[in-house]
């Protein structure tokens, strides 16, 4: 079910009312209702793939419990000063369950997302080497949200293995944590330490929480339906006709795609966080005005935060992070970004996108610019505009590879930008109305850069109501509602 569908507009109030008026009495009934609603939400797309979510939940629930037993035995063995071999045995048992969880989750991901990619790539390689491979691919449907929920469940078992959290015996809470519908299909990717614990205590409705949730939902819909979908109407024809478009039009297409993907994905995240608040849950923030970043490192602290911190904690740090030689650190940066690129899709374009970001990030690291910005400060000043602009240009350049269907297309697009700068550009593609809307959006983002949204800044002021009405008015009258406008990150 898409957030921007009529189905969801009906689904949300019904589940909200049932949750707070019928199933609110006991924790188990709240969780059971969330679980059933989440399965209905997912099954709306394709009920057959519910089996994968359930299987993933079962495996990780079981592995979590087994990991805990092994940890306990290890601890007992250590406490009793048993022979080191006993400890090793228990540690091996621990590793076994972690390995099982990793194999299962990454296996799912590998099969559904990367099987054909690896077959095709191997065949291409063999062709280059002069062989004539005779191969076939499978017609595999990519289950929506698989990259998100597998990463979420993986973090659960890894955290237990590392002793960061304890497993839950509450099966209903765990299954609800895995399938929680607001963030099931496109994140934010939540850690068990944060979200699962919320399923272990009864939720109470608070007006403030509900109101903050509605603000986020409102602003999320604005970003998606008004900003992203209107930009898509310009971006799609430019990328489809990149051979004939002028350099200026290609640049326009790239910049608008940058705005589109931000509006699309951060809009989705805002709606997810807002909906979760309506049900009494707190999800992590996924975006913090990333296009106001002053360098690439800061960009990655503000863009898709739940994924970048996931890779940081479960891949970059285990690889060694910045410890060791600079060469090792640069290697680690490239590994993380390349895998992050592949996470987005089984295509070489995503790999190159990752490589570009890795190269830019590595440069920042080598010149020690990574830590010289106050990480927590959102008080970016206008004096920093040149740095912000440069970062935005670099990010936009990388987006070309992200958006293009193939490496050939991306390359031709870049060449077109450079070689055809003086072909006449058709600026009428961007209507005056869209230009005004984009300017207002930029202003709102700037005003709200130190807050969750600019609407939050108006809290307690009388003019917040006209602001709400204005935003809703823009959504209703300037939004794009046609069915084809799905969320970009659903494909990942």
């Amino acid at each position, binding site marked *: 079910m898409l957030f921007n569908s009529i189905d969801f507009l009906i689904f949300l109030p019904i589940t909200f009312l049932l949750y707070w008026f019928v199933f609110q009495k006991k924790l188990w009934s709240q969780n059971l209702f969330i679980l059933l609603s989440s399965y209905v939400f997912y099954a709306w797309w394709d009920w057959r793939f519910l089996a994968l979510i359930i299987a993933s939940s079962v495996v990780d629930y079981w592995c979590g419990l087994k990991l805990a037993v092994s940890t306990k035995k290890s601890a007992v063995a250590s406490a009793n000063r048993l022979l080191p071999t006993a400890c090793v045995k228990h540690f091996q048992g621990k590793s076994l369950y972690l390995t099982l969880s990793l194999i299962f989750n990454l296996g799912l991901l590998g099969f559904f997302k990367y099987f054909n990619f690896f077959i095709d790539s191997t065949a291409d390689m063999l062709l280059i080497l002069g062989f004539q491979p005779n191969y076939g691919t499978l017609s595999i449907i990519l289950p929506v949200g698989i990259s998100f929920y597998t990463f979420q469940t993986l973090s659960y078992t890894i955290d237990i293995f590392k002793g960061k959290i304890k497993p839950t015996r509450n099966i209903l809470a765990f299954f609800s944590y895995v399938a929680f519908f607001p963030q099931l299909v496109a994140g934010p990717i939540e850690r068990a330490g944060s979200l699962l614990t919320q399923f272990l205590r009864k939720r109470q*409705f608070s007006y403030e929480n509900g109101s903050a949730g509605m603000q986020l939902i409102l602003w999320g819909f604005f970003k998606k339906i008004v900003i992203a979908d209107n930009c898509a*109407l310009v971006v799609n024809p430019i990328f489809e006709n990149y051979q004939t478009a002028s350099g200026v039009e290609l640049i326009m297409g790239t910049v608008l795609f940058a705005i589109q993907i931000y509006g699309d994905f951060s809009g989705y995240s805002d709606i997810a966080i807002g909906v979760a608040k309506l049900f009494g849950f707190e999800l992590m923030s996924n975006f913090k005005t990333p296009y106001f970043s002053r360098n690439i490192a800061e960009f990655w602290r503000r863009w898709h935060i739940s994924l970048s911190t996931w890779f940081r904690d479960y891949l970059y740090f285990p690889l060694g992070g910045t410890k060791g030689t600079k060469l090792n650190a640069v290697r680690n940066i490239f590994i993380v970004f390349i895998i992050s690129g592949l996470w987005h899709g089984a295509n070489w374009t995503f790999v190159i996108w990752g490589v570009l970001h890795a190269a830019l990030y590595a440069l920042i690291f080598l010149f020690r610019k990574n830590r010289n910005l106050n990480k927590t400060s959102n008080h970016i000043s206008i004096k920093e505009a040149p740095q912000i602009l440069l970062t935005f240009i670099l990010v936009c350049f990388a987006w070309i590879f992200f958006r293009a269907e193939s490496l050939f297309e991306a390359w031709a697009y870049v060449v077109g930008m450079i070689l055809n700068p003086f072909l006449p550009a058709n600026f009428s593609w961007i209507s005056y109305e869209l230009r005004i809307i984009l300017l207002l959006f930029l202003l709102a983002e700037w005003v709200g850069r130190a807050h969750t949204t600019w609407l939050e800044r108006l809290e307690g002021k009388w003019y917040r109501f006209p602001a709400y*009405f204005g935003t809703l008015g823009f959504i209703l*009258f300037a*939004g*794009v*509602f046609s069915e084809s406008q799905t969320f970009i990150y659903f494909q990942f």
Partner: protein
Amino acid sequence: MIKFISRIFLFSVFPIASLFGVFLLENGTADPFYQRFVTPKQEALILGNSKAAQGIIPSIINDRLADIYPANLYNYSFTVYNSPFGPAYLESIKMKLADYDGKRCFIITVDPWSISSDINDPNNPEKFEENKLFLSGIKNVSSKPNLEYFFLWFDNPFYEIILMRMINQVSKLHSDGWYETSGNMNENAVKSRRLFMIDLYTDFLKKYSYSAERFKYLQKTIDFLQTRGKVFLVRMPLHQNLLTIEQNLDPDFGLRMGFLSQKFGVQYFDFNNSEMNWEFKDGLHMTVESAKNLSKILSNKILLSEN
């Protein structure tokens, strides 16, 4: 909780009511198809693609045929992408057609494009392109306002309903289904549009080929309508260069129409055989004046066929 719900309700009422009001303002200037899904079920239909949508004016024909066919014709033609003959169009026709006890007629316009499909798999109805478009999607073709169309198929922001109502002097979908478009009729502008169409349709020749399956659906459409009234087949006129392209697409098209005419006992009027000097906006779609003339001549032909 009650405070929260009541505030959400109060907050939503005004914007939603305004949106509903704006929907009611759409008068055929903001969208070339919407009004056809607003009008009630119709007793008699004109079918085809954009050539018929712009080239046949039901009100003119209705005035002339009123004595013989009291059921008013309604132009339910769309475009070559949306309404070639196939399952989607036939189902939509069935939904739009009202029951009627009196005498009525149907005009089905035909051309090679409306019975052709993707060259790679022209006879697989599951892969017909219109399956993903609005005629296949809309289940309610007579609802005012039509929320299904607005929320799922209206490609522009809704403010355009007001904006277009104020500024659009170029195109309008009339209440009888006729889509009137005007614009720059300067010789160079017309020529430039015609060359564009020639390029476009030359390109289509590489992508489309005759579809036996679509031809079957044309026959099903005739068969369905013939049990309810008298059917006339019409081929709309077009510029010589575009006619040549159509002949290249399906050299046997004339023979096929002859076959249909004989099989179903329907009259077939090919306006490309007439001596009239038709004028086009782009080689394909007729000017308003030519559309008026064609509608009059077509009425006369239908009247003559009755005698």
